[in-house]
């Protein structure tokens, strides 16, 4: 058993986007704060800190999670994926990201990281989703800019592309 006393910092080691990474956290530190301010991975955003808005959605050991409802100490030894891990190379966009760009599926971009993480995870699990399935997934996210239609459109396009249909138009960063 390990008991981590309050008010002390404890080492947290994880695989972040495939690379080993570590930092210190008090037991009460949220994973959002740990990723952003301890590790410096500020791509994961904080919108509500009560699990509703979805901006902080990340993947922990292959499962979607609200980083704001997760303690940093809970991910010790886990593999965490964040938006910083989505692009195939620093100067290129992944297929889903490119679909977002093509379809104007973002405006301010604040909620986008969480939405990308949900979709990235989902499209790997459900290669040929129906629009209703994608809608159901996206109800876990709030976006105030786009009215959602372009997000849905980008998601369906990315799904079609992943399923082997040709992209409408190639677009890289």
């Amino acid at each position: 058993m390990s008991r981590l006393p309050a008010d002390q910092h404890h080492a947290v080691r994880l695989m972040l986007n495939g690379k080993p990474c570590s930092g210190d956290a008090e037991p009460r530190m949220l994973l959002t704060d740990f990723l952003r301010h301890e590790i410096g991975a500020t791509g994961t955003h904080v919108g509500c800190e009560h699990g509703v808005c979805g901006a902080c959605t990340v993947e922990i050991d292959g499962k979607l999670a609200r980083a704001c409802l997760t303690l940093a100490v809970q991910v010790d030894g886990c593999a965490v994926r964040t938006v910083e891990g989505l692009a195939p190379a620093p100067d290129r966009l992944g297929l889903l990201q490119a679909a977002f760009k093509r379809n104007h599926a973002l405006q301010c971009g604040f909620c986008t990281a969480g939405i990308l993480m949900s979709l990235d995870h989902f499209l790997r699990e459900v290669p040929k989703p129906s629009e209703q399935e994608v809608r159901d997934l996206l109800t876990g996210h709030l976006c105030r800019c786009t009215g959602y239609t372009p997000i849905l459109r980008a998601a369906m396009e990315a799904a079609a592309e992943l399923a082997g249909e040709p992209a409408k138009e190639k677009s890289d960063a």
Partner: protein
Amino acid sequence: MPEKRYGMVEATSSAKGRPDPGSPWVGQSIARVEDATLLTGRGRFMDDIGVHPGTLHAAFLRSPHAHADIVSIDVSQAMSSRGVVAVLHGEDIKALTSSLVVGVKAPVECWPMAVGRARYVGEPVAIAVAADRYRAEDAVDLIDVRYNVRPAVVDPRAAVKPEAPVLHDGFGGNVASDRSFRYGDPESAFASAPHRISIDVSYPRNSCTPIETYGVVADYNPGDDAYDVLANFQGPFSIHAVLSRALRVPGNRLRLRTPPDSGGSFGVKQGVFPYIVLIAAAAKATGRPVKWIEDRLEHLTASVSATNRAVSLVAAVAEDGRILALDWDQIEDCGAHLRAPEPATLYRMHGNLTGAYDIRHLKIRNRVVVTNKTPTGLNRGFGGPQVYFALERLVQRIAVELNLDPLDVITRNLVLADAFPYKTASGALLDSGNYQEALRRGAQEGGLAELKARRQAARAEGRLYGIGYTAVVEPSVSNMGYITTVLTPAERRKAGPKNGAQATATIAIDPVGSVSVHVASVPQGQGHRTVLSQVVADVFGLKPSDIRVNTEIDTAKDAWSIASGNYASRFAPAVAGTAKLAAERIAGRLRRVAASQLNTETDDIAFVDGHVGSKRNPDNRISFSRIAALSHWSPAALPDGVGHTIRETVFWTPPELTAPDEDDQINSSLCHGFIFDFCGVEVDRTTLQTRIDRYVTMHDCGTILHPAMVDGQVRGGFAQALGAALYEEYAYAEDGSFLTGTLADYLLPTVAEVPTPIILHMETPSPFTPLGSKGVGEGNCMSTPVCIANAVADAIGAKDVVLPLVPAKLAEIVRGAEPAPPARRTSSTQAKRGGDRKLRGEGEAVVKANAQQVWDMLLDPNTLAAVIPGCHGVEKISGTHFRADVTLGIGPVKGRYRAEVKLSDLDPPKAVTLTGSAEGGLGFGNGEGRITLGPTPDGGTTIHYTYEAGIGGKVASIGGRLLDGATRVIIGQFFVSLARQAGGGEPASGGLSWFARLRRWFGGAP
């Protein structure tokens, strides 16, 4: 129109390149330059930017009461908490700053933190500054504040009554401003009109609530007596003057910067400014930089809200539905303080109070009131939703009452196509448009005929289906002088004229000839950088990717003015146009440079494909960068009089935006787009939920610069408006408790709730803007809520509908009276009036002790200590007054409270009234209960109790759903413990678990 369009994703307006090389970039939906950064997590939002080592973090203690005197604040425990550097309260802030200016002439102060008195739930009462946010919040928990609660007023109509509790002594009652206006001859029009049709409506409180909250980092340098502030403020930068005055420094000693990215604003981030004062003051007090990132609970409770408004609107109407005159009576609720720029929400639409209609006679009474709610500020639509909800509901009422088609009533009243520019009765200059054509095309392309057929078919099946319409003008580019319409002409003369709308843009060319653009516009996701790159690329014959745009603001270094910032939909009409003017000014000089280099005339010079060359002889050309860089490398090579081509800043203000005149006519905005919306909705007979079957929105926003972004603005505004229509309300209880403090209570629409609107366009360029474009981003926030309301009213045949259209509110209208309760049952113990959050209940316990023994226990501090749930000790103040320190909790929700218990109406040993109150970190509660003791046949006692209790503060705003149950559990616990102490447990309940008994005792289900 095929059905599938509504649920399906349409593939229109996706990013495209330009169709052929010679065509302009403006008007093309090119990919956004912003996106790659944002999609890869490299955005730099407020909280992503590193801070100076040693920066402290702030957290606020906020008032749990809507209205209360602050009796004392004890910070000693908080100060000794680990990592805490300072705790400041109202008096400290008062010593460090000056009051914020108030937008009307009245001897009223406006502090960003409660000084002596709290006037709304969530008002800052103290700020704790510590090594990190966690510790700052620990300190907040330890600040001990004692309040004396005052009565609160939350309804604007109640606030103007003489008996209402008064918030500020300097206003007349709660009325901060009361002005009447008269245009044309409304009295005669009303006297001669055959019909007088009126409507009374209340527009609710809501907010466009961006997903990124407020953030401020402030530093103070005593050596310079200067502040350096980074905040995700959006403008208008007229607020800079308010800030520097409050911080007691000249404007040039307040450096205000904005981060590169901002996570949405929709007007809301204007409201960060009082926190800039507080965080800057904290930085000065601690001598360290201080950072504060607002959390979501703070944001929902206390950031800013759109105004709620009570409106009585009367129309004088001809037989054919033509409106001859309007009589507006508006009571605008600005919340607890009249913060800059309020009462701007009320006056922004002053020139447009006749909407899209040709109405020459107009009477207006405008009252601005303060109530015990969060102060208001900028919010997408700004005044439009409030005005059009009344005006367009009235138009629908006119159609119903005169048995006309609503679309005919709209059509008959529209400003005619040949009347532009058209001056409205109250002074707005409608710049351009063809409203009749927009209606015609909207109805045709949007499939109105088919929608009517759908309504008919649905109604034949007994379904509740309705169609709603709206026609509105969407103002953009605010006149900086419109707010002075709140002053009388005499007051305005004294204050000096205010007018115009200074926009600014800077174009710079560096030594290798690459072009940079800077504008003072502070985008929050609208894609300004992309559009500016298109506009400037077209002027220079370059590609958008050749242009680098910076939209951050640094008031110490950049060109800016009071109108700078992102609001009033001013980007496309004003800012982008100004960038074009700046680019053209440099291009004009480059043309002369090129002409001299290429031995031709300036008229012969064209900018094409990265080159500057002769139109007549395309081979005679030179690369743009070479010509552009010449000013740096060889100024002597420039023709005489060119000066330089390095940097050009243009300030542009439209001459049409003049100050209000002596007759109170005001051209409140430069441009007026037009929107015609209609929709079909169905109200589900079981759930009473409103489903949008089809929503059509026809826009004329002048020249379209980037079609996909325009559609993005329409979609985004539509989604927020749908929220305002159906889901979103900042709700308050009668006592001023805030009830929607989480995103589980303040309901933003998700993808499941937002249908895809059919967006249609026509383009009538504005003659008043450099690019012919008008604003477009706010229109649906104005048109959509009332359009949906009109459709629902049509569906259910209701005269009055209330926003948001919460299904439960429709129950009486659709279903009539509720089935009666079963005969034996008395009326519900929960019966409540609207807004009354008092919880009532009763219960009974049977104990073995006799009445006298129970009585003695009730008056004995030791017994009370044992029976008050979670009691840590009872202090006896008098024979009938006790004070207790208690920990109360339900499940995991626990908090420590200071409780007072008083006994009155003593009738020993039969009955007593118990009055109690408790106050602690999670909120406060108070209640009154009457206990009656009666003998049982076997010598025991029946303890019967009735109670009425209320809870407010943090728990009310974030756990409202859980509250009533929690209260009942706690009250139940008290009597259960009392019964235990008195040897409780009647034989019949012997076999039941403690919980089952508890359940029965406090009225739960069997």
